[in-house]
């Protein structure tokens, strides 16, 4: 891929920019942040998840001369995109295992981010206090606002990225600390409480999000914390977040043959746990592929505990459905093999159907629904 870093820098010049990076939640948080900053004026954004420099260049070129931009950035590309765009704020969400057959390992990304943040003292960082990897990365920055959005997935942060000692979680609350060194959970200025965000001065902002799940309340808190740095008050920004109904097709509900089908994207173990939290108690279709954008390795299926699905009707499909079949058998979760999305739709009665799919499977289903509608 050929990219011209000067072109991106040229297009970024004169705009106040926020960057959003992390393993999960980038696209949604970028969408929320763009909605929040919309209070101040027109916002350029790469809202379809094209999160490498060609996507940024294209988004800024298409947007024309907007005063503001919010860009979702792939974790590996963050240093180069910071260098090219001189952002005002960088939001660091989380780091966990994702496509290990291709991506760098988690601790290496944390170190890459940390080295980068130390070089740009003028950037304000908004970072997740609940993820030890992110705290290590962000604490080299000159100015940090910490948020707490909770973290269900913890298996990639047992070992301190600073010294290799154990990280232990407190018995109660969200606290954690390294047993060998100084790294510990910073006190967050922004927190969440069920469907509300508590801001840095303790004001409560009740959200009426259309997007489901606790994870999206956390993404909203992050967006509001970023917006605050651009001078947008959370009271003004919060109502804008509830206007967001779907993000690049995710969470969208589609009617087909009397079935209300909702699509949830789950790319890696951490996001599967969040998807189970979002999915309603209805027949649930799980769809797994292992193409290039998904990673060719399906081992991660065994990192997800599917037990929350016991008691509901579970169907499976996708090119790697047999991997999932063996996983569910071991997990003692009864399932039906549907093979394809179309057959699963036929198999369930009219009513709700929750669909949880990984990346290329999700895109295929979107395309199939678009063809029919």
């Amino acid at each position, binding site marked *: 891929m050929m990219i011209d870093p000067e072109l991106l820098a040229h297009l970024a010049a004169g705009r106040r920019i926020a960057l959003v990076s992390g393993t999960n939640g980038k696209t949604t948080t970028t969408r929320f942040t763009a909605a929040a900053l919309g209070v101040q004026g027109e916002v350029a954004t790469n809202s379809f998840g094209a999160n490498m420099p060609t996507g940024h260049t294209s988004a800024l070129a298409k947007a024309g001369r907007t005063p503001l931009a919010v860009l979702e950035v792939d974790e590996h590309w963050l240093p180069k995109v910071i260098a090219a765009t001189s952002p005002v704020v960088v939001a660091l969400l989380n780091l966990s295992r994702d496509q*290990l*057959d291709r991506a760098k390992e988690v601790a290496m990304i944390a170190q890459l981010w940390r080295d980068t943040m130390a070089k740009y003292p003028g950037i304000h960082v908004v970072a997740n206090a609940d993820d030890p990897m992110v705290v290590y990365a962000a604490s080299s920055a000159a100015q940090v606002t910490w948020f707490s959005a909770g973290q269900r997935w913890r*298996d990639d942060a047992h070992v301190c990225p600073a010294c290799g000692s*154990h990280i232990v979680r407190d018995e109660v609350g969200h606290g954690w600390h390294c047993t060998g060194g100084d790294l510990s959970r910073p006190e967050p200025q922004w927190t969440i409480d069920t469907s509300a965000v508590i801001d840095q001065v303790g004001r409560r902002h009740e959200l009426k999000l259309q997007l489901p799940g606790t994870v999206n309340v956390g993404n909203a808190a992050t967006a509001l914390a970023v917006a605050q740095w651009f001078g947008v008050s959370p009271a003004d920004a919060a109502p804008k977040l509830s206007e967001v109904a779907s993000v690049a097709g995710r969470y969208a509900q589609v009617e087909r043959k009397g079935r209300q089908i909702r699509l949830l994207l789950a790319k890696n173990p951490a996001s599967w746990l969040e998807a189970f939290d979002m999915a309603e108690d209805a027949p649930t279709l799980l769809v797994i592929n292992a193409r290039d954008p998904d990673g060719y390795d399906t081992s*991660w*299926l065994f990192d997800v505990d599917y037990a929350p699905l016991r008691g509901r009707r579970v169907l499976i499909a996708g090119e790697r459905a*047999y991997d999932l*079949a*063996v996983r569910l058998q071991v997990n003692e979760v009864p399932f039906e093999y549907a093979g394809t999305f179309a057959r699963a739709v036929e198999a369930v009665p009219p009513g709700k159907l929750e669909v949880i799919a990984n990346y290329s499977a999700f895109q295929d289903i979107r395309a199939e629904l678009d063809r029919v509608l």
Partner: protein
Amino acid sequence: MSYSDLTVVWVYPDLLSTYGDRGNMLILAHRARSRGIGVRTVEVFANDPIPDGDIYLLGGGEDGPQALAAQRLISDQGLHRAVDRRAVVFAVCAGYQIMGRSFFAKGAECEGLGLLDLHSDRGPTRAVGELAGEVDPALGLPTLTGFENHGGRTHLGPGAKPLASVKVGIGNDGTTEGAWSGTVLGTYSHGPALSRNPALADLLLRWATGMDRLPDADESWTAKLRAERLHAVGLA
């Protein structure tokens, strides 16, 4: 014939656990219980001593944690004692490398546990992709199928037998894959290697229980998965 309370110990999941390593513990427990064999699973962190057990599992890991795990296991000696009393060890990827005499991590040679007669160094390329091979006939298992993801190459000494001859992928060196000796068995088939190799899972259970034969298990899905994966690499 029944065997109660088989103890499966997952060694240092805090250090040696990449994608799906938990799977081997879950699969062994499921396959044992489905035959009426009681199973206790224990996850032992690196700060704690290696407990008594019947089957020990070691997973994959990054360089730093791999070197740390080897150091802890050498000073603990619990795994050595377990092997002396013929407990079963199943080690994958980084865990397989540390079972040997030496391995490379972070550019330096590190001392291994010496429980398999082999040593590992760095290869010219990273081996990533499907791995398949014909298993040592002495083990009586069907074709091995898995996914490998490692930068090491492993060289076997006379005291270790190759687990398989490579048909697809790299394994140890492009020719052989994995190793076994007594009741210690290692492979580059990473993560939940036993999901595609149920007969290998049963071999470990037979070694641990001393049972010559296990009751049949429901292989309808594992058989479909194996057929699909072997077909994908042109072996079926």
